[in-house]
């Protein structure tokens, strides 16, 4: 099978690591080669977290290049937009959980919150 790259993102504390682990186990259970990597460290302190999973094909590195993920899984709206813009391959799929955890600048009144329409519009571009 040709390699299928997944990029996941969300906010620290939402469970991206667990989601990634479940996807990796599922791929392994299906008999596919799989590797991945999560961001750790400061991640649980409410910062942006990301996880890469690569299924099938020869394993090179778990890190996925920008603009090459077939599937984006995001657990928060702002991060869905950020992830899609940076990592989605042309024709890729964005699947996200539509909740909003406002980034600091939005709470400070220095930036606008991302709306579901913003995400949709970005996908159409």
């Amino acid at each position, binding site marked *: 099978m040709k390699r299928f790259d997944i990029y996941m993102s969300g906010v620290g504390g939402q469970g991206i690591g667990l989601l990634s682990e479940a996807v*990796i186990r599922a791929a392994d259970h299906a008999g596919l080669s799989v590797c991945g990597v999560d961001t750790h460290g*400061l991640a649980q*302190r409410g910062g942006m977290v990301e996880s890469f999973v690569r299924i099938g094909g020869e394993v090179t590195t778990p890190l996925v*290049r920008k603009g090459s993920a077939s599937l984006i899984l995001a657990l928060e709206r702002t991060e869905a937009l950020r992830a899609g813009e*940076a*990592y989605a391959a042309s024709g890729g799929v964005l699947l996200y959980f539509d909740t909003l*955890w*406002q980034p*600091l*600048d939005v709470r400070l009144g220095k930036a606008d919150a991302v709306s579901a329409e913003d995400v949709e519009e970005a996908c159409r571009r």
Partner: protein
Amino acid sequence: MKNLGEMLLRQEPFSEIVLGNTALARAMIESGTEVVTSYPGSPTPEIASALLSVPGEKRPFYFQFSTNEKVATEVACGASLNGHPSCVFFKSVGLNVAADSFVQLSLLELEGGLVAVLGDDPGANSSQNEQDNRHFARMAYIPVLEPSSPSEAYRYYLEAMALSRRQKMPVILRMTTHVCHGKEKVAFGAWKGGSVSTESRFDTSGGPMVPLTTAALEMKRRSLARLSLAGCEMDSPAFCEVRKGTDSSRGVITAGLPFRSLLDVLEDSDRTPDILKLGAVYPLPEKAVEEFLRTHGQVKVLEELDDVLEKDIKALAFDRGIRVSITGKTDDDDRIGEYTPDKVAEVLAKTWPDMVPLRGAKRQPSLAPRPPQMCPGCGHRSAFHAIRQALAKEDITVADIGCHTLGFLPPYEMGEVLLSMGHSTGTGAGLSLFNRSRKVVSFIGDSTFFHAGLPGVVNAVFNNHNLTLIVMENGTTAMTGHQDHPGAGRNANGPSEAIPVRGVLEGLGVKSIREVDAYSQGKLIEMVKEAMAEEGFSVVIARHPCMLKYTREQQRNPDYVRKSVDVNQETCDRLHVCVESFGCPSFQRDEDGTVTVSRELCIGDGSCIQTCPVKAIGLRKENRGGETA
């Protein structure tokens, strides 16, 4: 998922998808490593989580979190001198703390062997710099193996320990962040079982062991001889792998994660170079490198961070008179950041653009960044919100390392300079010299206080410095995943005597000490003002347990009911103190200025209630009087 502790003790060979760090834990057990020490620091703490998942009575090793990396190194060294195969692991900058003892290791006869696992952090994902610890290896005469994946981490650890035991010398296993945290299926070998030996084998007959006067030179000679023996052993196909490309006039010499990134980048390329992948990075495997240089017209050295391999390879080519064009770093950018596939594509394209397929540039959205921040309920937030009110605008604040470092971000902007673990009292003391117009306040966390904070405190008392130290005490090593520290009353093996911060300060001769719960903001403001008004060195302990740890523990209780606060919209005057100044991430602001509370985030700690000038914040009705939601 299978039970990690049971998995690590399996005696038959097996394959499992694991983190690089977990693969190391299994390698330690398989290789018979008996003593393991550490101080927690990303990217390595999951090695400890894996080891500690083995129940105490079943552990075929002894593990401890030591006070700091230097002590961890010394404990591992002592254990090795006594015949126990030992391992010490810590993060990149931990080696700076350990250095005084670390650079001596190769002078000794390490009877049991000693592997130092270093977690370097290219990209500074969770460190204050991206230092390249290969430089230390050269200074300390210690050979370095560098894996590029979890499977290699496992294999190289076994090789490193075997080499270390054969030569009775230290060996470095240099990990980097995404090798530690990469997950893949690793094929493990058998483990024949075993337990920690109780035989004491410390013996000075192979000495000298005390490097004074002429002995220091004799010991250095022995160390250098061992290093070259190790270098010869490592100059083998086991650590020097050649991959053929389609254009064999050109070759890349690389190591570690950049090797993996290179494979990824070349995947869609029509013209690919030959690759020499080095697993042994210090000393340079000269035989393998020389052969590669002689068989290629152009060679690119592709290495992360500094030009360590590049300089050695160029020197080798010069010494041996090899006619080959060698390109390494082309500019400062090549020395900065992690060599992800995107970075490697960028770096390689500067030398050989024809080998890097073009990709359409991706849009960079102008989205609000999402920096890490203090958790809902964090005592540090409450403390910073209060302390800011006690300070004058021109006063100077000095940060230290830990969760409280995040206070430098808006809206608190507390902590204006940072060097290293435990630096804040010393740096603050220097800032206070000849400075009558601006008061100096330093911060430190409790784990860091024990790690490297004490000498600065002693110095402040000894030299009668004029500053205020605020100890942000949360009872744990929070940033790295809640490891116990000397003040916690528990170590990695069970209960221990808690060392109280206040008692230590008193013992060190600090006369002015105040203590307060960080949630009592009014009292804290008053105490900080009083302390700062005093001449000399004063300490305020702002204490509150880490609420992330506390809440997680509470959530394991089946009767746990999650609480939260609410904003009374009729009372709220939209002054926005809660969302802009106190800044708990639970507060969300609508476009029209309405403030609401996210029930996904709020833990109902109530530390925000006191911050509202019009008393519009309160616990949700269902949380009052013990009723459940």
